[in-house]
């Protein structure tokens, strides 16, 4: 009887303690977090290319068709995060990219090869996103600007939305608009010569002269006399690009996940470049002429699989088609091998093949009665191979310092059947 009483008392005391626990879902203790620095990424790359049949020289295969390029690209992205009263995560990112390049073909904008052969590109970006972890949604806005090598200026805007499903999936949609202006720097033989140095003079007009150094001057004539000269005033033409991107990610099992991405792209405006020459079969040259509209439809698939304990298979395939007649296939495989949990080596290979656009023909193969024509070998039929190796270091105590959480180094060799070959080495530093 005594044992039963003690047992009953013990059970009663346990029941009292059970009801004294606080609820696990009590959010009254949650406090919003102010904006703080989350991570900084620095990416630097060196690109070196050898090629011939440059578009500036209309696809010529001799020494004047040289297409050698070097590019030094540097970029930094800084990300800040904060948590608001509704437990939503706000992320703000600011980025800046600065590229410097030399391009041998650029010198042949002047027929004697004396034009400026280098340039810079500066491109800042701003992004904001808000994540609602309770609803599994994310909404974002982005702004982009690019000033490229004095001939190309672009303003970009984007908005995005994504939502997670109950079965480890995620739908996403992104709308992007690029509004570009292309300065009409034409090959020197098509630039109006300063007539004040010749016998004949124009009446009222504006004459644009591009010097061998790449500077442009607008000379204003009135009654045949030079009224003024100014450094600006070269006409430009617009190019607009609208993209609707749809994506779906899915976790398939504990080792595999996949995604599909489809872009619907519409471009309008000046879709060529003003310093790309075309040589007709009669030996005369002109500037390439391409249609003012283009529809593109790329569809990409990714499949990642964790094989065993140390190997990951990253597969990618893309099919592309557009209304200029170009079709392409892209396939790549990257195999990160975890030598240790914090050090991996990633060999990779990429294969690409495309058909030519309807308007392409090689040097001196076009006829003057064609409506559209280009000899830009980026739009020709070719295949390419790319292979290389990546190294990734991510030790828990940082690389050399605690704040440097990840270091990635990557080398790639790229070659096309058009006789173009390139090497690129890139470095990414992530600070947290």
């Amino acid at each position, binding site marked *: 009887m005594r044992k039963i009483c003690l047992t009953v008392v013990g059970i009663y005391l346990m029941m009292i303690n059970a009801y004294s626990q606080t609820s696990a879902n009590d959010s009254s203790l949650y406090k919003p977090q102010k904006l703080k620095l989350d991570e900084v990424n620095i*990416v630097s*790359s060196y*690109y070196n290319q050898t090629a011939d049949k440059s578009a500036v020289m209309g696809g010529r295969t001799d020494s004047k068709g040289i297409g050698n390029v070097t*590019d030094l*690209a540097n970029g930094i*992205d800084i990300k800040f995060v904060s948590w608001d009263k509704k437990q939503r995560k706000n992320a703000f990112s600011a980025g800046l990219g600065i590229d410097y390049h030399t391009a041998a073909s650029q010198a042949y904008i002047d027929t004697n090869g004396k034009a400026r052969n280098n340039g810079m590109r500066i491109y800042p970006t701003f992004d904001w996103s808000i994540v609602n972890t309770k609803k599994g949604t994310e909404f974002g806005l982005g702004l*982009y600007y*690019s000033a*490229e090598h004095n*001939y*190309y200026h*672009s303003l*970009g805007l984007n908005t995005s939305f994504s939502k997670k499903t109950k*079965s480890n*999936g995620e739908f996403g949609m992104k709308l*992007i*608009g690029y509004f570009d202006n*292309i300065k009409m720097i034409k090959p020197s033989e098509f630039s109006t010569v300063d007539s004040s140095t010749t016998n004949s003079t124009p009446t009222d007009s504006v004459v644009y002269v591009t010097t061998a150094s790449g500077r442009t001057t607008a000379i204003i004539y009135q009654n045949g006399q030079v009224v003024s000269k100014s450094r600006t005033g070269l006409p430009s033409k617009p190019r607009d*690009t609208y993209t609707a991107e749809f994506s779906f990610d899915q*976790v*398939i*099992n*504990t*080792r595999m*996940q*996949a995604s*599909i991405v*489809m*872009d619907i*792209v519409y*471009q309008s405006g000046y879709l060529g470049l003003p310093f790309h020459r075309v040589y007709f079969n009669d030996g005369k040259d002109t500037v390439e002429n391409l249609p003012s509209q*283009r529809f*593109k439809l*790329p569809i990409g*698939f*990714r499949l990642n699989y*964790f094989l065993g304990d140390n190997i*990951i298979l*990253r597969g990618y395939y*893309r099919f*592309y088609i*557009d209304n200029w007649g170009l079709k*392409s296939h*892209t396939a790549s495989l990257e195999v*990160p091998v975890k030598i240790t949990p914090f050090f*991996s080596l*990633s060999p990779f290979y990429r294969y*690409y093949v*495309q058909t030519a656009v309807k308007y392409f023909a090689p040097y001196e193969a076009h006829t003057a009665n064609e409506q559209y024509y280009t000899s830009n070998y*980026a*739009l020709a039929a070719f295949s*390419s191979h*790319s292979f290389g190796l*990546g190294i990734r270091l*991510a030790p828990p105590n940082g690389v050399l310092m605690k704040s440097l959480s990840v270091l990635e*180094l*990557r080398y790639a060799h790229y070659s*096309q059947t058009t006789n173009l070959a390139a090497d*690129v080495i*890139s470095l990414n530093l992530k600070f947290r």
Partner: protein
Amino acid sequence: MLLTGTSVVSCAQVKEYQKSRINDSEMVLANRKVEKTEMSAQSYREGASGANGGKTGGGCGCN
């Protein structure tokens, strides 16, 4: 699309505590930041672009 749809139907229910491999940084379904210059060069030297998180034709003097 059909392949992905079939995969969705046959997907195993993966709990959060089972996602240690899925959440590995090298299992991310996107290009690495360190590939940025390669992708940019491809958009200039090739006629196709898009469906890879990079440019689709605007914003640069690319194709």
